[in-house]
């Protein structure tokens, strides 16, 4: 039985995944290549895989073709040999005259020997065919194993990232209107508050530390 090759798309579909799982493996876990965690995933070498498959198919074709060719050649030789044998028996009976019964027996024996020989050849060829397919199948299995292992490694990697408590990437805290209000409520003087609000408004959307520093100045002078 020949190797049943499946495309990457088919293999992925069986797992409910798309090609993205290979091109951007972190994406399905929320760590896509667009973010800062995408760097912790390496994409699947699709080209390398397909090269391996093509190479495997080529080898299969070559090996199986060789076996069939050899079988055809050997079977042909056996056929030729048998025909030659049968001719010899027929010629041997013509001048001196082998009795019809003896000639028939010889020809029957020759045909039986030829048949057995062909059977042996067919059996050997079948065994070689099976052995070769097994060998090629194991290579294909190794390729598929690398594909499966890649998917598993991606899941492990996502788990490692999650366990390390990701922050979500660079997230310098920026001042918000609520921050301004919160700091403002801590100030005592009404004049201070009005002045602080005016100065702090311009810091909304800017680094939080700037607002802290501004508040520090007001608190110091309060």
């Amino acid at each position, binding site marked *: 039985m020949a190797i049943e090759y499946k495309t990457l798309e088919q293999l992925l579909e069986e797992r409910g995944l798309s090609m993205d799982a290979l091109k951007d493996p972190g994406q399905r876990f929320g760590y896509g290549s667009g973010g800062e965690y995408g760097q912790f995933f390496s994409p699947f070498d699709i080209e390398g895989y397909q090269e391996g498959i093509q190479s495997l198919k080529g080898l299969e074709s070559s090996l199986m073709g060789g076996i069939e060719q050899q079988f055809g050649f050997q079977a042909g030789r056996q056929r030729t040999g048998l025909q030659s044998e049968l001719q010899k028996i027929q010629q041997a009976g013509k001048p001196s005259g082998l009795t019809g019964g003896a000639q028939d027996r010889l020809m029957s024996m020759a045909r039986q020997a030829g048949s057995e020989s062909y059977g042996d050849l067919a059996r050997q060829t079948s065994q070689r065919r099976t052995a070769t397919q097994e060998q090629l199948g194991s290579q294909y299995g190794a390729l598929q194993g690398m594909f499966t*292992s890649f998917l598993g490694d991606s899941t492990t990697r996502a788990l490692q990232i999650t366990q390390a408590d990701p922050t979500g990437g660079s997230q310098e805290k920026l001042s918000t209107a609520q921050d301004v209000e919160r700091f403002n409520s801590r100030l005592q003087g009404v004049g201070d508050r009005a002045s602080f609000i005016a100065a702090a408004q311009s810091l909304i959307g800017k680094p939080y530390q700037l607002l802290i520093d501004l508040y520090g100045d007001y608190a110091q002078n309060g």
Partner: protein
Amino acid sequence: MATLSQILAGFRADQQLGQKETLGMLGESIFESETSVKEGSRAYQEAADDIGLDIQKYGEQGAKIDTAQKVLSLIPGGQIPAAILGFGARRARKKPKFTFDINKAAPGFEDRLFADQAGKDLLSSIEGTRDIVSQALKGSFFNDLVSTATSLYGGYQAAELAGTVSEGTTFMDFLRNQAKETDNTPVVDATRNIFDNDSFNVFRGNNYGLGDRSLYNIGVEEEWL
């Protein structure tokens, strides 16, 4: 032409190398994140210790000013200048300020990719310390005024006790420097000339409900009791 085994081995090696490289990068990034949080925590701890010492020093300076103001208040007519001086000295103290910038203390802290909760905890501690310091110094102008007045009143009580103002002198009289001064000769001793005999005896005689336990009764002869 490469054999299938070569192709497969090369493919496998490339995949593994890619995995190992990204694993290494991940490990490095986790390590950097954790180091950044540790560095920030250490620097924060130092800053918190420093601000604690500064606040303590600030309080001690206030207490010294209180004492000096009370002592100056004992000098007849010195209460208002003492209060002004005390208030000025209080305002002149350098107010402790908690100026901790995590980005300077631990460069890369804000950009770290991992140790999210640990970082949040640290930021929360920093905010908490900032709030505590802010609360401790909140309304310092008002506090300084109250403290000055309290010291003034403390000076009035001390003067009353010391007998440098006569009975019937109110706190307002004391402030207006209209105390009815006594003509008692102050006792010259370790009390720095501020106690007079009568008021000391009154103080000792009052006993303040301490009975025989009063330290002032130690070594005092029977007729005193």
